[in-house]
């Protein structure tokens, strides 16, 4: 489809108009963004100033109560009452201001809590001053509780302000970005509009050119017409008609020309207007940039001003407070210094102070004694002079680590005496920090001389090593001895008994087959030989049993002692059948032990009690127990023959007897077995007796 020039012109004009419209809108939009930024700055300033105001109120409360404590003048309390009345309203306002931010709300809530605690503390201070006097009030203040609340308030306020500033910064960054993108868009639109205007001008130019051509043709027609008048008068009429027609044509042409001229003017105006717009747009961009810059500056200054103000307020309050405290503190400090100096010098422990360059700045008397150097001699010298030559670097490294951490674990370090001998110190050190708490200004260290202890430890270690070696050797020897004993016992069991059996066996054969050849004396000798071989067999068996008690492994189980004793007593029913025997058994506890072996203990003791009471008219046997700390003691008491206590130590020996075989039979192995069994259970046994007044046998086992 072909578009006429007129249509093209209209289309271009519409595009230019739309472009201008968009430019206008983007200027409006960026202005609005700038206004938003302005509002945000104001909001932040409001929050910061309000929170500073709250902090200042809290300081009013603190200062006011302190003033009252010092002076007892109730005029001091006015700022506190004033602050008390307004501070929570301010906190509410602050809360309102930041209601779009839940994190700030939490901080403001804790601000309110600490404010209430601070206020309560100050009121309590004032009350204490009024009711209990200055000393109590100072004691109350020195609990530091108030200071803690104030610190918290300050911390929270700064955190609120910091967060608000950070938020503002973030928002402004977003705004800035949108302004920049608006500006970019604006420039693009401007360039496009200019381009369109240029195209419009070209279109007008081409229209003008076409009109000039038409004029030329009209002139040619006039010439042709006058020629025609000369040549053909008859055709005059037609010519006059042609003249009229021509005149009309000329007139039309003139009209066209006029319109073209008007169009040029209109075009020029449009061009001028466009130029003006471009100029203004450029000016606007510059103005915008300036505004942006000014805003930034304002913000910066405002923030600085707030900080400066807060600091100023804080400093002046602090100064006031310090001034009043300084007088008291100065006096206290003088006393404290004197006291500390004395303490340092008189302390038994060596104490040293050095600066960050590791130069000694203080050296107490104990250290002087330790090193043989005087304080005068070492002040200003490097710590290095204290260490043995071969350990200077490693010792300094240990010390250096002290300065890195706030407090270090105790280090063990060697110190050399002027005369060359070494002492070992446990050095416990702590940094003294600068008032800002960031850089150490000195290190104080206290030593503990452990030289003697170290020497002793070393000796113990050496002894332990030797001991361990000895234990290994002895254990080996014992193991060997045990093996030998086992082989020996086995050998006895077999080889020693065989000849005895042969003696007995062949005497028996002799008696059976050859008794006719022997007289009565011969037969009696044979009987003695037989009895002796039987007795020797019994001795061997007893010895084997005894040695087995030392060798076999214990099978520990829980033992109901009462039941065990009952069973043992029952097993003697045949022997006690014809006798008058009374046995009383108390309740006996449960113990841990080898059932077979413990049974043997009871068997031996009860058997003994019955044996040694057999000559009494009535045998009285009492069996009981008692618990002593970590052991249980059992006893078997009888009213029998008893024994002389001076032989008590022989009682539990192998084959030891305190009575004649003629009076009481036995080979003297029973109590030795009892003693061995109890020894293996970690217990012991003993006895108490008087001749003819009975005996009491005790034994103990560990309590489970």
């Amino acid at each position, binding site marked *: 489809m072909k578009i006429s020039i007129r249509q093209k012109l209209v289309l271009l004009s519409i595009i230019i108009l739309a472009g201008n419209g968009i430019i206008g809108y983007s200027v409006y939009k960026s202005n609005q963004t700038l206004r938003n930024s302005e509002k945000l700055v104001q909001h932040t300033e409001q929050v910061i100033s309000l929170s500073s105001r709250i902090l200042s109120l809290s300081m009013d409360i603190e200062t006011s109560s302190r003033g009252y404590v010092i002076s007892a003048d109730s005029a001091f309390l006015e700022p506190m009452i004033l602050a008390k009345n307004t501070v929570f309203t301010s906190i509410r306002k602050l809360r309102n201001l930041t209601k779009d931010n839940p994190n700030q709300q939490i901080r403001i809530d804790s601000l309110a809590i600490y404010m209430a605690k601070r206020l309560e503390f100050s009121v309590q201070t004032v009350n204490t001053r009024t009711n209990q006097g200055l000393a109590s009030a100072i004691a109350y203040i020195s609990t530091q509780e108030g200071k803690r609340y104030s610190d918290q308030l300050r911390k929270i306020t700064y955190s609120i302000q910091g967060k608000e500033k950070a938020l503002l910064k973030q928002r402004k960054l977003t705004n800035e970005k949108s302004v920049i993108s608006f500006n970019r868009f604006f420039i693009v639109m401007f360039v496009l509009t200019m381009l369109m205007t240029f195209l419009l001008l070209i279109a007008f130019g081409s229209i003008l050119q076409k009109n000039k051509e038409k004029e030329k043709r009209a002139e040619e027609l006039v010439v042709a017409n006058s020629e025609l008048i000369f040549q053909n008068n008859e055709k005059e009429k037609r010519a006059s008609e042609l003249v009229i027609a021509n005149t009309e044509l000329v007139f039309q042409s003139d009209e066209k020309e006029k319109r073209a001229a008007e169009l040029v003017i209109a075009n020029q105006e449009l061009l001028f207007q466009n130029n003006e717009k471009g100029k203004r747009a450029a000016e606007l961009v510059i103005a915008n940039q300036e505004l942006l810059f000014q805003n930034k500056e304002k913000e910066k200054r405002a923030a600085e001003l707030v900080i400066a103000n807060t600091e100023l307020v804080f400093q002046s309050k602090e100064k006031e407070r310090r001034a009043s405290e300084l007088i008291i503190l100065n006096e206290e400090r003088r006393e404290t210094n004197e006291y500390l100096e004395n303490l340092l010098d008189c302390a038994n422990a060596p104490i040293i102070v050095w600066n960050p360059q590791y130069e000694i700045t203080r050296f107490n008397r104990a250290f002087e004694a330790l090193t043989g150097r005087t304080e005068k001699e070492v002040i200003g010298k490097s710590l290095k002079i204290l260490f043995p030559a071969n350990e200077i670097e490693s010792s300094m490294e240990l010390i250096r680590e002290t300065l890195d951490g706030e407090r270090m674990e105790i280090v063990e370090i060697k110190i050399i005496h002027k005369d060359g001998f070494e002492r070992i110190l446990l050095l416990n050190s702590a940094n003294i920090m600068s008032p800002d708490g960031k850089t150490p200004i000195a290190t104080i260290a206290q030593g503990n001389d452990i030289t003697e202890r170290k020497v002793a430890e070393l000796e113990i270690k050496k002894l332990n090593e030797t001991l361990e070696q000895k234990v290994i050797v002895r254990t080996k020897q014992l193991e060997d001895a045990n093996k030998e004993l086992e082989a020996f016992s086995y050998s006895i*069991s077999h080889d020693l008994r065989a000849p005895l059996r042969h003696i007995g066996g062949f005497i028996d054969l002799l008696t059976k087959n050859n008794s006719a050849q022997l007289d009565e004396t011969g037969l009696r000798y044979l009987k003695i030989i037989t009895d002796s071989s039987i007795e020797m*067999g019994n001795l061997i068996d007893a010895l084997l049993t005894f040695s087995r008690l030392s060798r076999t492994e214990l099978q520990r189980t829980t033992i109901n002692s009462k039941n065990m004793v009952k069973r043992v007593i029952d097993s003697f029913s045949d022997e006690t059948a014809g006798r008058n025997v009374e046995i009383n058994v108390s309740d006996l506890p449960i113990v841990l032990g080898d059932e077979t072996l413990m049974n043997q203990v009871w068997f031996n003791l009860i058997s003994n009690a019955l044996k040694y009471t057999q000559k009494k008219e009535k045998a009285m046997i009492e069996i009981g127990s008692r618990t002593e700390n970590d052991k249980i003691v059992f006893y078997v008491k009888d009213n029998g023959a008893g024994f002389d206590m001076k032989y008590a130590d022989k009682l539990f020996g192998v084959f030891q007897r305190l009575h004649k075989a003629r009076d009481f039979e036995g080979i003297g192995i029973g109590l030795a077995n009892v003693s061995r069994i109890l020894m293996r259970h970690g217990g012991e046994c003993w006895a108490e007796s008087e001749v003819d007044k009975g005996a009491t046998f005790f034994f103990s086992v560990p309590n489970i």
Partner: protein
Amino acid sequence: MNAEVKRILIVDDSPKDVELTIAALREKNLANEVVVAEDGEEALDYLYKRGKFVDEKGYPAVILLDIKMPKMNGIEVLKYIRSTPKFKLIPVIMVTSSREEKDLVESYKLGANSYVVKPVDVVQFIDAIKSLGQYWAVINQAPPVNI
């Protein structure tokens, strides 16, 4: 029962003990039924009919086996008998001086039919042997043995 078969095999290295044992068995008229091996190896020779026992026939009704012997001891002989299918049903009585529990336990574990400690008291010893011979060689019904 084959009359040529010796019913009691005594395995013991002590001739005195053997003599006492035979004397005891004589009282029960069992002396002629006895054959003696002086150590473990001879006991196996008897069972396999080799060496000095090459002309013997059959198996004993009971073996009285001492433990402590030179070369192959009683425990080893018992182990061999119980692990050899041909002999494993033969009753074996351990007759020994050892009262050691480990010998007793080991013997029963390996399948000894009885364990008798040779008493020092000769009367007891003879009684024991007499009743052993009576029971195992006469009263007890011997297990079937393949020849």
